[in-house]
Every structure is written in structure tokens, then in C-alpha cells.
């Protein structure tokens, strides 16, 4: 199940593997379960292999050296990802992927160490606040979902004018019920102005099958994409 799917007219979704990525295989599996074709992308290639969308998965790219996502931001594949994102390609950054998107400044703000200084791993309740993005349109606005959250540096911070702007423009994609890591305004995920780039701290790819994880609430992040691409 680790290889790429072949053939068909299904949308092709690239999942980038960086040195230290952990959740790339789960992300590819979630893409396939949603009905798209998963394409493994390599951090060192200047090549998106013609994919229709990109997922930056969770993990500890480059050992989280310097700052989470700071080195991965300059990986060869990221220049293609950033250009494609600016042209409207859907990009989802999960956990470390969210950190990378903040470091590229495709998304505002940054993620710092959890206020309680502990690595948290839990089934987290979230409210999907913006269901207009490429990655959340299969949810209802205000829908409450349960998705795995696991991070040590997941506390979302930005200055107050930026936070006010995000709220005013409806760019808070998901908010924690409770606040497990000290994120400002309990923000769990944000989107860019166009709604094609989404960063999310919790891991929807770990909530796509009943067998493991807290249910299948995460699957709609990946099925949302099909509505945009097909």
C-alpha cells in the first residue's frame, strides 16, 4: 500500500516526503480512501509530477532543527509548491506541514511550543468554522468533529491585527473546543485569502477509518478536494 496508485481519471494528490516526515504514508492512504490517486513527492525534486493538489504531512522535517518547518521551507520541491499555491493549487499542511506553510508565509502567524510545555496526543474536538475552502467544503459550517491532535509545538500565534483580520475574513478554518496547547483564540487551522491553502494542526489523515483512530471525521478534508478538482 506504500506505492502510488496508477491510471484512471481520478484527481492526483501529491504528498511530499521530507527527511523526518512521519505521516506521509497515512496521508497517501487517506487520499486513496477519499477516492483520489496518491502521488509520492520527494523533497529533493524540483518536480510536482503534474499533481492537482499537494499535502504537506506531519512529522519532524529536518529534525525540527532551527525552527519547525524552517529548513523544509527551502527544500527544492517547496519552490514548486509555493508557486503552485500562489496560482491556486489546493495545498493542505498538516501539523509540521502547517508549520512549513507558516514559514513560507503562505499562511500568516507561526506555531510555537505548547504553553503547557508537554507533547499532547489526544482525540481532539474541533469546530469547522469555514466550510468554503478547498479542503473543508464537505463539512457543514459549525460542524463539530473529533480528530487526532499530536504535537509539541502547536500553539498558534500571530499579532492582534492579524488575528482580527483572520476572524473578520472568516479565515479561521477550525477552532479547538477547549484549548489544548495555548493557541491564540483557540485557532486550530487557518486558510489563505483565496481558500486554496489550509494549515491545520490536528491530523485528519489519522481519522479516516473506524478500525483505528477516533472515527472517520477526518475523511471529509480529503473528499472536499474532489468536489473542487473534478
Amino acid at each position, binding site marked *: 500500500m506504500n506505492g502510488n496508485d496508477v491510471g484512471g481519471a481520478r484527481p492526483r494528490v501529491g504528498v511530499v516526503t521530507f527527511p523526518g516526515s512521519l505521516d506521509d504514508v497515512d496521508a497517501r492512504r487517506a487520499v486513496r480512501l477519499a477516492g483520489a490517486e496518491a502521488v509520492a513527492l520527494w523533497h529533493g525534486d524540483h518536480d510536482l509530477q503534474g499533481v492537482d493538489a499537494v499535502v504537506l504531512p506531519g512529522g519532524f522535517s529536518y529534525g525540527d532543527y532551527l525552527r519547525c518547518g*524552517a529548513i523544509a521551507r*527551502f527544500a527544492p520541491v517547496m519552490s514548486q509548491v509555493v508557486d503552485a499555491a500562489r496560482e491556486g493549487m489546493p495545498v493542505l499542511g498538516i501539523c509540521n506541514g502547517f508549520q512549513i506553510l*507558516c514559514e513560507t508565509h503562505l499562511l500568516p502567524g*507561526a506555531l*510555537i*511550543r*505548547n504553553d503547557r*510545555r508537554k507533547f499532547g496526543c489526544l482525540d481532539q474536538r474541533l469546530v469547522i468554522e469555514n466550510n468554503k475552502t478547498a479542503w473543508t467544503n464537505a463539512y457543514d459550517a459549525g460542524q463539530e468533529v473529533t480528530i487526532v491532535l499530536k504535537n509539541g509545538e502547536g500553539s498558534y*500565534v500571530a499579532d492582534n491585527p492579524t488575528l482580527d483580520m483572520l476572524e473578520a475574513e472568516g479565515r479561521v478554518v477550525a477552532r479547538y473546543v477547549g484549548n489544548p496547547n495555548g493557541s491564540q483564540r483557540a485557532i486550530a487551522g487557518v486558510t489563505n485569502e483565496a481558500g486554496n491553502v489550509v494549515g491545520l494542526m490536528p491530523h485528519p489523515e489519522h481519522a479516516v477509518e473506524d478500525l483505528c483512530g477516533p472515527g472517520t471525521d477526518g475523511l471529509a478534508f480529503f473528499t472536499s478536494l474532489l468536489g473542487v478538482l473534478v
Partner: protein
Amino acid sequence: MTRVVVDVMPKPEILDPQGKAVQGALPRLGFQGVTEVRQGKRFELEIEGEATPELLADVERMAELLLSNPVIEDYQVTLVETAETLS
């Protein structure tokens, strides 16, 4: 050879959980009265050539682009020394 130090600190308004953890440990070791600890990073760079304005401008760009994240951190560039004997 030019030696430059770049100090990177979390912005004052940004919570610094690492600094807080250090501060919390000090009284347990018998050190009283420490009211604030902020933890940052120090980069020591050795760069070929003299400390020209162009070289220092390059260091500023390094600090802004990679060594710090301007969203959450401030940086300060300090020229330490310029000497032929540095190797």
C-alpha cells in the same frame, strides 16, 4: 575573515515556554528572585572577507530569511572582529 554574531530572541509579546521552564527550575536549585527568563538562540558566523557594508547587509538578509522568523522573533547582528588571523 569576519566574525559576526546573530542573536535571536522571541518577541517580548510572544510566550516563551522554554524560558518559563528554566525560570521554574531555578528556585528548586535555591536561586531566588529570578523574575524573568527568556531563552533565545545565538549564531556565530565566520565569513570570508572584510566586514564591508555589503557583507553585513548579507548577514541581515540571512537573519531575516532563515536564522529568525520575523513573525515571532527579533534578531540583532553584532560584528565581533575582523582579523587576518581568524581561520
